[in-house]
């Protein structure tokens, strides 16, 4: 029987607040009166955003993004984000949305009382370095910000993607032709807080002042078996272009893979059998392809010309009789993936395959609730091989219950297309991740505001680097 003292101690332990995940992320409005975040133009509250002016609504979105991140990270140091909402380069068809990044990187900072040491000789983004060493690191008293952010205030105005302005709601329910500011700011804040290989230059592999970034310890090239921290500049530059073979090999990042990513979609070529099994990209629309073990979809492949006389499938197919009950192979290009698949479906196909027109797998994004047949994207090389084997090509579409989409050996892939994409390569998840992740290079409409599993892998990366 417990004594009163023991019971009191037990109660104290049980009732003690858990070390909650919380960091105070403060958005500092850098705009002058009358413009940007201080724009007094009246606005109607929308999507849970109570702001009554354009400026208020924008600032509310920024603060919501700050709160989302602050609620999932832990730090005793306030994180200051210097933010501007101002006109940026834009025209009728294209425009800069914005950017955010770490305002400082720190290395070899001695820890304060209660803090821990940084990994020696390694750059950390400012907010993380301060969290770990438990202090406000002041490199320039006049520039105390951990993160900078600037976004385009003119979006949707005449001459700037007119009628495609920001959606200021906080509910991820942007209407057609609007851009969800919250998703965009969440993504960019992610970079500013540490989802970046910076300050290492990913295109050249060059390091700032010769020191690696904390990310390099977790970046593994599955072809060479080397981590970035052990590579030369040239090796890092090559690894940044090693499509689908650059992964995040951190414990937390990979631990959340099973609870976050779906099973890998595959095309098993049964005839000619020599072609074997290939990774494919499941479409974001249409039904989910069943797991393996017999619950698969198999059929003969046809590659008919569409009504435009091309293999693109952008127009209705003129000879449905040749398609009925078959799997239609089409090439990527000219029109949306959903358009192609819809045309195949309308002609009686049971499934559709889209072969890429460049390296890697096509993303297969899009929306069309009317599509009821499954579809996948495959590499350009496999598409060529399937065509070469026609009319005897027979394939099976399946999901492999032992492999997660967007991974190699259970490590999530980083985006490393063969053609280096400035601003996109390396510091994002690969587009083969399914479902879509917040930190993919292209922002998708199906994102939530969650940054952790089971919705997203991103917080795992943050834990790996020390958050």
């Amino acid at each position, binding site marked *: 029987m417990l004594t009163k003292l023991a019971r009191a101690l037990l109660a104290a332990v049980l009732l003690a607040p858990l070390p909650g995940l919380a960091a105070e992320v403060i958005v500092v409005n850098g*705009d002058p009166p009358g413009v940007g975040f201080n724009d007094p133009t009246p606005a109607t509250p929308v999507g849970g955003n109570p702001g009554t002016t354009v400026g208020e609504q924008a600032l509310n979105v920024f603060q919501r993004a700050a709160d989302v991140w602050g609620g999932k990270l832990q730090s005793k140091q306030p994180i200051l984000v210097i933010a501007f909402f101002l006109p940026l380069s834009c025209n009728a068809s294209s425009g800069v949305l914005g*950017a955010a*990044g770490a305002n400082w990187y720190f290395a070899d900072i001695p820890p304060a009382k209660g803090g821990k040491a940084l990994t020696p000789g390694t750059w950390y983004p400012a907010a993380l370095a301060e969290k770990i060493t438990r202090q406000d690191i002041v490199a320039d008293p006049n520039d105390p910000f951990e993160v900078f952010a600037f976004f385009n205030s003119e979006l949707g105005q005449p001459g700037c993607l007119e009628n495609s302005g920001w959606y200021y709601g906080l509910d991820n329910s942007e209407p057609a032709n609007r851009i969800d500011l919250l998703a965009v700011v969440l993504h960019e804040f992610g970079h500013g807080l540490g989802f970046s290989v910076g300050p290492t230059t990913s295109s050249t592999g060059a390091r700032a002042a010769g020191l690696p970034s904390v990310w390099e310890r977790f970046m593994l090239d599955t072809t060479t078996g080397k981590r970035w921290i052990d590579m030369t500049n040239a090796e890092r530059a090559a690894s940044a272009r090693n499509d689908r073979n650059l992964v995040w090999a951190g414990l937390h990042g990979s631990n959340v893979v099973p609870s976050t990513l779906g099973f890998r979609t595959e095309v098993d070529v049964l005839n000619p059998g020599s072609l074997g099994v290939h990774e494919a990209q499941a479409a974001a629309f249409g039904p989910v392809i069943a797991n393996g073990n017999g619950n698969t979809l198999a059929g003969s492949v046809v590659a008919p010309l569409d009504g435009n006389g091309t293999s693109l499938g952008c127009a209705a197919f003129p000879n449905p009789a040749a398609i009925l009950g078959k799997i239609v192979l089409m090439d990527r290009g000219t029109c949306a993936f959903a358009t192609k698949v819809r045309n195949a479906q309308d002609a009686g196909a049971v499934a559709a395959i889209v072969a890429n027109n460049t390296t890697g797998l096509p993303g297969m994004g899009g929306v069309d609730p009317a599509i009821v047949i499954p579809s996948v994207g495959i590499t350009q090389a496999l598409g060529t091989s399937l065509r070469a084997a026609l009319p005897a090509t027979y394939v099976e579409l399946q999901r492999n219950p032992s492999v997660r989409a967007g991974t190699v050996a259970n490590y999530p892939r980083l985006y490393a297309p063969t053609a280096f994409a400035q601003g996109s390569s390396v510091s994002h998840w690969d587009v083969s991740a399914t479902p879509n992740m917040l930190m993919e290079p292209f922002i998708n409409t199906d994102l939530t505001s969650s940054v952790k599993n089971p919705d997203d892998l991103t917080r795992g990366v943050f834990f790996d680097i020390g958050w």
Partner: protein
Amino acid sequence: MHRPILIAAFAAVPMLAVAAEPPNAQTKAPVATAASVPQVSQARLDQIRRALVAQIAVYEQAEGAMRAPTTAEAAALAVSPSGTAGQAIALPKGGVAFRPDISDASLLRATREPGGRIRMGHGDVTKAAANDVRKGDGHAH
């Protein structure tokens, strides 16, 4: 004759002006006071302004559209370099700091494709979208 309005002028000059007063801040509870938020330094504002010149747009009143600044307009916006971006700085209490150049920031762009779809991505989205769409097509409308 209409003269172009330098939107950048109100985008940049007022940023300089806010150096004279504490910036606004929104915080989650507990609410931090404005006094607890540091001021934006003149040097940093200059640096940001300089770095953003290439991205700042000019509203051409005669055409009712935005455009990139001319060389002369960009030069008029530029300020003298203030210095420390892109350099490692030894800190007095130990350790080193590195301030990246904001002009190197990875910009997120949006592009309206034929048919009205909006595609968002980093870098030059126009080039990436030249063939058709990747997952960004998830933002198709």
